[in-house]
């Protein structure tokens, strides 16, 4: 890695003692000696193991659940169903007033995705829990499922989630988050060229080395210590408190040393049910996702679809950009309503465009619920935007890097969401990339600066 100190030197103090110094990491000695304690390195005598019975169907009504054989299985201590969960219907963003509550801790009457948790089995050993889970009988009536966002938005599509009443998240702005800036239709009308393209992505798993999980130990005083690899301690504690209808003072969360997260450990899935198990049995409980659960059950990055329509001039200026973004939340909200609107705040990318129209939708389907991942709300949008930029440049026979210089935002430029640009550095990154990659651009672009307002 090279630090290029010649850029922005006037804005920076480089004479600090500790900041800017490549100090060794204080946690690394623990890592290389195997001494670092992750949540699963806590082991308690008498610890129970929790295994989840999951839906084999994408969408089904539950006619009945029979746990009697499982309960009789040797080593089984407790079997939990929806009725055992004090506040079974929840949504995690309720803490920042983004509702409605739309997800069940354990399925109640219906499953909405393949893999949804239905029954929790607690047993003396993992093996006993697995064997007992195989003995739980759930009678399902399979319902039509919808996996495609456009299909889900059509009239007559199967309703995925009754708590929403329609297959999209209803923002205060309506069916989508909107950004309106300038007059996009006038921009198209005056453009030399128009290009509309559609980009799509697939769900992506965080695949951290350490799977999601927690170990819960009763403290013996009505309090429960939860050793967890959550990415958000109080967010998880407070949601657990709501789900369990238990004062937060009864909960003690210990974590902060996590074997990789990438956004995959913000969903508050394992902790509430494990604490409930510990409360109802009085025993320590371990609930750790298997690798298969981590890969296919834990929330992935959402599948997205992005439609970009651009009006642009022969000289390289983009004069109008319309973006319609669809985020596939899967069956439940989790963080997706936030991610979709974060996208609205991100488009049209780091470019100054006078006429912009953005609609971003959060859509419900019977796919695995998605959630946050590194680059949440932005990563796939950037893929779409930057491939689109390449196409536009080639369409008018312009160098793709020079084309970006022409449109790059600079300090003071007004963004579509009506914030003036501050601290821009796109131009300088491109200048340095031109040099590093031996990708020549015209001198006028090398002398541009983010400090000075664009034309």
């Amino acid at each position, binding site marked *: 890695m090279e630090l290029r100190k010649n850029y922005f030197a006037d804005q920076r103090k480089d004479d600090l003692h500790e900041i800017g110094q490549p100090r060794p990491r204080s*946690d690394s000695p623990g890592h290389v000696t195997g001494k670092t304690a992750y949540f699963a390195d806590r082991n308690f005598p008498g610890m129970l193991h929790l295994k989840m019975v999951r839906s084999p169907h994408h969408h089904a009504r539950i006619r009945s659940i029979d746990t009697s054989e499982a309960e009789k299985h040797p080593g089984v201590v407790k079997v939990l169903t929806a009725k055992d969960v004090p506040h079974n219907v929840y949504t995690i963003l309720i803490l920042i007033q983004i509702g409605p509550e739309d997800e069940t801790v354990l399925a109640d009457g219906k499953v909405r995705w393949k893999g949804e948790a239905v029954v929790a089995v607690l047993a003396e050993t993992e093996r006993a829990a697995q064997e007992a889970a195989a003995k739980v009988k759930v009678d399902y009536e399979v319902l039509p499922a919808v996996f495609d966002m456009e299909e889900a938005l059509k009239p007559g599509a199967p309703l995925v989630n009754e708590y929403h009443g329609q297959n999209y998240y209803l923002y205060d702005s309506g069916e989508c988050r909107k950004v309106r800036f300038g007059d996009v239709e006038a921009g198209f009308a005056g453009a030399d060229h128009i290009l509309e393209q559609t980009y799509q992505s*697939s769900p992506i798993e965080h695949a951290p080395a350490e799977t999601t999980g927690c170990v819960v130990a009763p403290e013996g005083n009505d309090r429960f210590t939860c050793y967890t690899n*959550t990415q958000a301690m109080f967010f998880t504690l407070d949601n657990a408190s709501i789900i369990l209808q238990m004062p937060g003072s009864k909960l*003690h969360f210990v974590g*902060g*040393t996590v074997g990789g997260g990438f956004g995959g450990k913000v969903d508050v899935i394992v902790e509430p049910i494990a604490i409930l198990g510990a409360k109802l049995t009085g025993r320590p409980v371990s609930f750790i996702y298997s690798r298969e659960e981590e890969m296919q059950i834990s929330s992935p990055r959402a599948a997205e679809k992005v439609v970009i329509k651009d009006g642009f001039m022969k000289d390289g200026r983009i004069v109008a950009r319309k973006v319609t973004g669809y985020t596939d939340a899967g069956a439940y909200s989790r963080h997706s309503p936030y991610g979709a609107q974060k996208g609205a705040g991100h488009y049209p990318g780091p470019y100054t465009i006078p006429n912009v129209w953005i609609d971003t939708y959060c859509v419900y389907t019977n796919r695995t619920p998605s959630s946050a991942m590194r*680059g949440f709300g932005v990563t796939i949008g950037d893929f779409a935007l930057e491939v689109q930029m*390449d196409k536009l440049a080639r369409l008018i026979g312009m160098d793709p890097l020079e084309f970006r210089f022409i449109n790059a935002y600079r300090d003071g430029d007004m963004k579509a969401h009506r914030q003036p640009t501050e601290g821009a550095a796109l131009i300088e*990154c491109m200048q340095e990339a031109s040099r*590093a990659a031996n990708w020549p651009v015209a001198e006028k672009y090398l002398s541009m600066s983010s400090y000075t307002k664009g034309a």
Partner: protein
Amino acid sequence: MAIRRGRGVAAINYPTGMNLGGDPTQALVHSTPTGNFMVTLSSVDLGQGMKQIMAQICAETIGVPTDRVVVDTADTDTGPHCMGTFASRGTHRAGNAVIQAAREARQVMLEVAAEELEVNASDLETDGQGNILVKGAPQKSISIFDVALSAHFKRGRSISGRGMFLIPRSYPEKETGAMKPSTCYAHACTVAEVEVDDETGEVTVLTMKNVFEIGRALNPKMVEQQLVGGSWMGISHALYETTEPYYPNRDHGGTDFNQYLMPGPGDLAQTEIIVLERPSADGPYGAKGPGEMCANPQIPAVANAVFDAVGVRIDTLPITPERILRALKAQAGAPN
């Protein structure tokens, strides 16, 4: 058979923080009797190095070496509230809270030192090595060790501070979408060079030249860790990763590390990382969040490079050999 080479570029920015939800983090700082400093948080270290960075931020602010700072984090019985580690917010939000708490503690420390040295606190400075000096008269000094002892056993002062950093929630305006979705932006421009085997659709990423502007590299080696790993993940997203390889058929999702694909140690691109620093106005020592955006520009850069190499556009991620091969066959007019 032909191995065809191409290159592609992408430029991006990335927002720091979760402004649209309201974004608070708190920190507490206190000294031990012998002048070591404890930072108490509930923030989570996912491996990105939050603990180390908070120690360096606290040390810089107090004026002591980093190894005199201990970070105690993520115990809800002791640590004050943090929203969590996501949205590239950790360094920015928790860092600001630590600075505020450390400044308050530093002020008490200087006041105690001033009493010991019989000068005004405003006339004192730290040397970064554990000593407090009178400005302009450095021979008149006291160690932070002695100041802490004095505070604890003689003067009854708590060398401590509270930090609270809150970005108030931005509510998007319904019709126009006017909002403040972020605090500051990091930037990147990446050039990817690839080879595509036009008989199999296999892509080899030869080089990945990344330029990142991240505000301030608080610890350059740790920044490098994030950026190198992120560049790898970007390539992985571009070419390999999906939980539903044959969507709309949802079968055949990988359930292990053999079948959920990511580049192995034999697939590494020659990776170059260049860092620019334009300090953010509101970041801790000018820092922005680099952890997420560093994995974004490689994806379109690879997509554009694949087009440059073989002339087909794959607009659906991931850009698998199968998708490229199908596109090449369609381009050649062959039935498929």
